[in-house]
């Protein structure tokens, strides 16, 4: 009998639930039973509540079991999981699990499917198809194709990627750079991490296409230090890419050069802001730069630089491969293609859902997420990270779309959803937004540096019931100053969660006031 292939993810989330021990236990158990098992450490499928999700490759497809603890392993062997037999943790065919089946996996097509560091598997599953097409095109044509696809920056700002590339393409200089922003600091987001750990070559391919398009021969990936697993996987992938001739001089046997280097962040949230990241890459304090000049004109080391998020760059290969029209067919309004939504916080079925724009918050939270983990009613969801708005249940019918969210003073951001149940105190959450800004402000501009500190103080007074009406007015004025007067999105958007909490959950700010009045 030939060896059965068993998959146990090596994704950090799976590891956090004991995937390494499950993998070694499976190997030990197989050995003691005299069964041959071929163990593959894949990325995550994104169904994180099922991690560690163990899969067995069978003729009818891959069969899933999860969440598997080490104590379950012997039982799985007894039940005959290597033949796909039923067990309490049996989830059926992986691809048929509704959570996964009802997604549109374009960017994450290979994530969790292949061995992340196998160049053969990458190409066998469609990898480098986009790259090979790009090598036959002019730089301007690649930029146009990306622009035609409607792809917008997935980091949060939503700026059209193709236009950014065109600007760098048109800039004349002896040197240009591709800078990938992998400083995924927003709470509730982990898509960049999952992709870098589960399909690192797609990011390399996307960056190389960007290099070919704009005429850059070197790229940096700025990864946050909180992601040691992603750093190791990306580093190994770069080395494998060089060996395969995908990176270095004369890539893919042609006359183009492109190489990559990883730089590790150092725990500063602000370095997710593009100009601050460039400063950090240059070895300086991560303080933001005033714009203009745009990084596309004068970026890293004062050279024209494409600064894109991991998912923007990783979406490019499929666009090149299948065409702008194919990608553009997904989505709604001016939000084209798919977004990797991340279900996080107090949610039963947390994980990654790649869907076309237009899916509602309600579907994401209930259909995919299964409601709260605590079983209590969901009261608020924060969308788009610590600078995103808190939305009440009455707005869960909102469709995920850049413009629809902007119209409600909210933002899609990097696609993270953090769910809170009815025990949440929204005044406390508003206070945290200001506190976080005070901790992470780069200090360059006054509204952000000082405003956030004053914001914490004002909210403290409100929560203590001191001059509530007067202080609410003051908080409103302070938010206006921060929005209009800050240099970047950190100070400019911190009022978004604060004001949304005030608008949608005003009662939470008057608890102390009411308690005092009742006495």
């Amino acid at each position, binding site marked *: 009998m030939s060896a059965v292939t068993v998959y146990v993810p090596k994704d950090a989330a799976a590891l956090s639930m004991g995937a390494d021990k499950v993998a070694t236990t499976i190997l030990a158990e197989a050995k003691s039973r005299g069964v041959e098992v071929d163990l593959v450490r894949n990325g995550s499928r994104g169904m994180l509540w099922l991690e560690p999700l163990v899969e067995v490759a069978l003729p009818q497809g891959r069969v899933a079991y999860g969440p598997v603890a080490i104590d379950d392993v012997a039982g799985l062997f007894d039940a005959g999981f290597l033949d796909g037999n039923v067990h309490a943790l049996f989830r059926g065919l992986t691809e048929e699990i509704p959570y996964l089946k009802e997604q549109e996996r374009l960017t994450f097509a290979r994530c969790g499917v292949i061995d992340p560091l196998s160049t053969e598997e990458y190409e066998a599953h469609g990898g480098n198809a986009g790259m090979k097409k790009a090598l036959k095109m002019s730089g301007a044509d690649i930029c146009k194709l990306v622009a035609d696809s409607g792809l917008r920056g997935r980091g949060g700002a939503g700026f059209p990627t193709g236009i950014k590339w065109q600007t760098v393409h048109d800039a004349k200089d002896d040197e240009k750079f591709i800078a990938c922003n992998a400083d995924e600091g927003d*709470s509730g987001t*982990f898509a960049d991490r999952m992709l870098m750990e589960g399909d690192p070559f797609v990011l390399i391919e996307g960056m190389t296409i960007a290099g070919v398009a704009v005429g850059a021969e070197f790229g940096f990936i700025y990864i946050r230090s909180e992601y040691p697993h992603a750093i190791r996987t990306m580093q190994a992938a770069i080395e494998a890419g060089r060996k395969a001739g995908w990176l270095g001089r004369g890539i893919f046997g042609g006359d183009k050069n492109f190489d990559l280097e990883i730089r590790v962040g150092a725990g500063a*949230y602000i370095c997710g802001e593009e100009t601050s990241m460039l400063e950090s890459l240059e070895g300086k304090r991560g303080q933001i730069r005033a714009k203009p000049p745009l990084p596309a004109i004068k970026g890293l080391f004062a050279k024209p630089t494409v600064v894109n998020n991991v998912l923007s760059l990783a979406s490019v290969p499929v666009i090149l491969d299948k065409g702008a029209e194919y990608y553009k067919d997904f989505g709604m309004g001016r939000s084209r293609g798919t977004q990797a939504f*991340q279900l996080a*916080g107090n949610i039963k079925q*947390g994980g990654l859902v790649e869907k076309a724009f237009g899916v509602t918050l309600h579907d994401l939270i209930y259909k995919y997420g299964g409601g709260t983990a605590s079983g209590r009613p969901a009261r608020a969801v924060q969308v788009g990270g610590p600078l995103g708005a808190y939305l009440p249940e009455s707005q869960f019918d909102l469709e995920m779309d850049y413009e629809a969210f902007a119209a409600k003073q909210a933002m899609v951001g990097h696609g993270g959803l953090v769910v809170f149940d009815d025990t949440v105190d929204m005044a406390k959450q508003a206070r*945290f937004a200001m506190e976080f800004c005070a901790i992470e402000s780069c200090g360059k501009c006054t509204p952000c540096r000082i405003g956030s500190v004053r914001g914490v103080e004002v909210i403290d007074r409100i929560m203590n019931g001191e001059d509530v009406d007067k202080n609410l007015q003051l908080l409103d004025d302070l938010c206006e100053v921060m929005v209009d007067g800050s240099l970047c999105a950190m100070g400019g958007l911190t009022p978004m969660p604060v004001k949304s909490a005030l608008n949608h959950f005003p009662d939470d700010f008057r608890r102390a006031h009411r308690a005092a009045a009742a006495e």
Partner: protein
Amino acid sequence: MYRRQPWAEDRARAIIETHKGMRGALLPMLHAFQEEFGYIPQEAIQLLANALNITRAEVHGVASFYHDFRREMPGRHIVKVCRAEACQSMGADDLVEHAKRRLSVDMGGTTGDKSFTLEAVYCLGNCALSPAVMIDETLHGRVSPERFDELVAQQAEAAE
């Protein structure tokens, strides 16, 4: 993982030498110093300033800007508890209080026996399995106070 070697100038110079060709080398150098010595010793500041032809104030400015860079030797294990929103929604505030009591230190503090340094972190990217904790470079998900105690006990046992 930090090697926590005692300060040695020749070792420091060797680290600088391996990074000297890099553009924007200061962050990679600071990371390498911290990996070797466990923190950024005061002696390193002057060496870095000389190597990069910048002032000591500039090196200090960079080292102090980033939360990661330490100016004192941390405990043998670094325990990072996530305090960001996703973890808050699953009880991170209670977990932080529990961790402080269990280790008898405040956030940022090191236990008397130098076993643990307790730190706050804002997002470990494990937001679907909150609350999250990272001990050295090992990530843990769904960490209840009981689970926290187990993890800390495991580290203490491993040291014996």
